[in-house]
C-alpha cells in the first residue's frame, strides 16, 4: 500500500521535477543535463514575446479576479437570505459551474460571445452617432476577463459562502444591539469576519486565471497569454527556456496558493 502511494506521488511529481531541473540546464537540449546555469531564466525574462504574454496574463488575472471577488462576495452575502428550494437550486448551479470541464466552458463561451458580437456589431455601427467607423466588439483581453471572471466568481461564492454561513449570527445581533446600523454592522463585523475568505478567493481566482490554458485558448482571439505562448512555442520543440517559464509560473502559483490556504486557516483558527 505504501509503495503504491509512493509510486503515485513519483508519477505525479517526477515530470514537474524534471522540468524544474532542466530549467537550470546549461546546454540547449532538453534531453541531457550539461551543467548548472540560470541563463535560461535570463533569456526568458528578456524575451519580448514572453514579457508581453506575461503582461497580458497578469492584467487578465488581476482584473478578472477583482471582478470575480466583488461579484462573488456580494452573491455569497445575498445567498444568505435565500432559503429552502431556491437555495438548493442556486447552490447546485454554483457547484456545477465549477465542475463543468474547461473545454465545455471554452466552447460555449466562444459560441455565446461570437453570437452576441454578430448581433451587436451591426446594431452598434448602425447607431454610431459620430463620424468614422464604429468600434467593433471582438475577442481579446475583454473576453478573456469576462470568461475567467465568470468562472472564478463561482469559486469565490463557494469560498466566501462557507465562511459566511460558519459565522456566528449572534455577532451580527450583538452589533445591532449595541447600536450599529445595518451598514455599520456590515463594515465593522461582517467584513472583518469574512475578509480572509475574500482575500483567499481573490488569490485563488488570480492563480486560476493566470494558469488557465483551455478557456483562454478559445476566447483569447489574437491575444497571447503566457500559457498560450508556452503552448505555441512547444510546437517548435521544448527548450530549457520553456522549462524556466514553467518553473517560474509554478513557483508563483504555489506561493499564492499556499498564501491563500494560510489565510483561510488563520481565519478559521481565530474563529474559535
Amino acid at each position, binding site marked *: 500500500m505504501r509503495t503504491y502511494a509512493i509510486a503515485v506521488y513519483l508519477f505525479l511529481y517526477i515530470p514537474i521535477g524534471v522540468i524544474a531541473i532542466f530549467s537550470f540546464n546549461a546546454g540547449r537540449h532538453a534531453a541531457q543535463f550539461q551543467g548548472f546555469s540560470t541563463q535560461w531564466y535570463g533569456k526568458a525574462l528578456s524575451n519580448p514575446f514572453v514579457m508581453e504574454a506575461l503582461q497580458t496574463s497578469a492584467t487578465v488575472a488581476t482584473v478578472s479576479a477583482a471582478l470575480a471577488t466583488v461579484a462573488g462576495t456580494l452573491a455569497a452575502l445575498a445567498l444568505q437570505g435565500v432559503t429552502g428550494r431556491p437555495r438548493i437550486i442556486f447552490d447546485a448551479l454554483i457547484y456545477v459551474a465549477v465542475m463543468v470541464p474547461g473545454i465545455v466552458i471554452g466552447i460555449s463561451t466562444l459560441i455565446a460571445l461570437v453570437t452576441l458580437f454578430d448581433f451587436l456589431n451591426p446594431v452598434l455601427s448602425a447607431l454610431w452617432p459620430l463620424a468614422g467607423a464604429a468600434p467593433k466588439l471582438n475577442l481579446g483581453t475583454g473576453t478573456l476577463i469576462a470568461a475567467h471572471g465568470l468562472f472564478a466568481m463561482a469559486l469565490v461564492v463557494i469560498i466566501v459562502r462557507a465562511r459566511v454561513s460558519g459565522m456566528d449570527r449572534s455577532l451580527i*445581533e*450583538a452589533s445591532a444591539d449595541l447600536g*450599529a446600523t445595518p451598514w455599520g454592522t456590515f463594515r465593522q463585523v461582517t467584513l472583518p469576519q469574512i475578509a480572509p475568505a475574500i482575500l483567499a478567493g481573490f488569490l485563488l481566482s488570480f492563480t486560476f486565471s493566470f494558469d488557465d490554458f483551455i478557456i483562454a485558448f478559445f476566447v483569447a482571439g489574437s491575444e497571447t497569454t503566457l500559457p498560450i505562448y508556452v503552448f505555441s512555442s512547444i510546437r517548435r520543440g521544448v527548450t530549457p527556456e520553456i522549462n524556466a517559464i514553467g518553473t517560474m509560473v509554478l513557483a508563483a502559483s504555489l506561493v499564492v496558493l499556499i498564501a491563500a490556504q494560510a489565510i483561510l486557516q488563520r481565519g478559521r483558527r481565530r474563529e474559535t
Partner: protein
Amino acid sequence: MADGTETPIAELRAATKRYGAVVAARSLDLSIRRGEFLSFLGPSGCGKTTALRMLAGFEVPTEGEILLDGQRVNDLPPHRRPVNMVFQHYALFPHLSVADNIAYGLRQRRPRPPAAEVDSAVAKALETVRLPGFGPRRIWEMSGGQQQRVALARAIINEPKLLLLDEPMAALDKKLRHDMQIELQTLQRTLGITFILVTHDQEEALSMSDRICIMRDGQIVQVGSPRDLYDRPKNRYVADFVGKSNFFEGTVRAVEGGSARLDCAGGIRVVGRPSEGVATGQAAIASLRPEQISLTRGEDGIPVTVVNRIFLGEHTEYLVRNPDLGQFLVLSSRQAEAGEGNFEPGETGRARWRDGAALILKND
C-alpha cells in the same frame, strides 16, 4: 416616586410570537418596574428567550405590543432601542480587543464621542467588572468567566434602560457561577439599571431577583417576588419550580374560611390553605415543604420508614417512605435532631406536620 403610578420601564401587552405553527410566546402580559431585577424562569423551550428577544427588538411580535418607557416600539429595530443584551454565549467580537469590544457601543453614537472620553469610559467599565488593565487583551486569551465580564462591561457602558441577560451563567462552573450571581446583583443595585434575566435555574432566580416571572409552554404562569411564589404558588407547577416540595394527591372534601381539607390515599388527611379555584369534590394536591414536616418517635403522625439520609450541615434531609403516600422528603434541623435523635436508614418513625401548614393546589 415609587407610588405605583409611574410608567413601567417596559411592558408586554398580549405579546404573541408564532413561528409557523409553533407558538413560542402566547399573549404575554407583563409590566417591568423601573430599577427592578426580574427573572424569567422556566424549563428550556418555554419561551423565555423569545420574550427577551421581543424586548431587544430581534423578534417582532406576531400580535400584541411591546412598550419601552410608555412608547410602542414594535417597529423599532434593535439598533435604535435603548436596551442592551448579554448574549448566552457572550457574542464577543473575535477580531477586536477587549477594549474595542467594550467601546463598540459608544463608537456607534452620532456624533461620535471624543476618543479620550471613550477610553476613560472603557477603563471605568473594566474597573466595574473587576478587569482593570485587561483592555489590550484578545478575546480568546480570556477565560469563560472573564469573557462574561467583558460582555457585561460592553453592555453596561451604554447605560441602557434595560439590561437583558440570556442565561449568562449557563456556561460557567458552579463556583464561578455563584460568585458571578452575587456580583451581578451588586452591580444591579449600584447601577440602578433594570435587569431582566432569563434562567432555567430556580436557585439563581430565587437568590437574585426582586420578582420572578414563571413561564410554561409560552405562557406566563405566575409573577411575584421569590417569597410570594414560595409561600403562595398558584399551582403545582410553580410550587415545584420554586424550592423543593412534596406533593400528595387527593380529593378536596371541604373548603371553608381560608382552609381546605384534602383526603389522600389510605385516609390520610391534609389540611391547608387552598389556592384560587380549589373547590370541594375536585381532585387536587397538597404541597408540603420538606421543612414543614418533622420526624418523631412519638405516636402522632403517619408511619414512615427512613430510606436515605443526607447530612447538610445545619440540616439533615431524610427521604422517607409511607405505604400510602410513597416517598417524600423531610428536612430536619439540628435542634430537632438534638431532641429526637438521629434516624438511621431502615429505621421507622412518624412524620408530622401542622394542620394548615400545607397548600392545597390545583394539580396543573
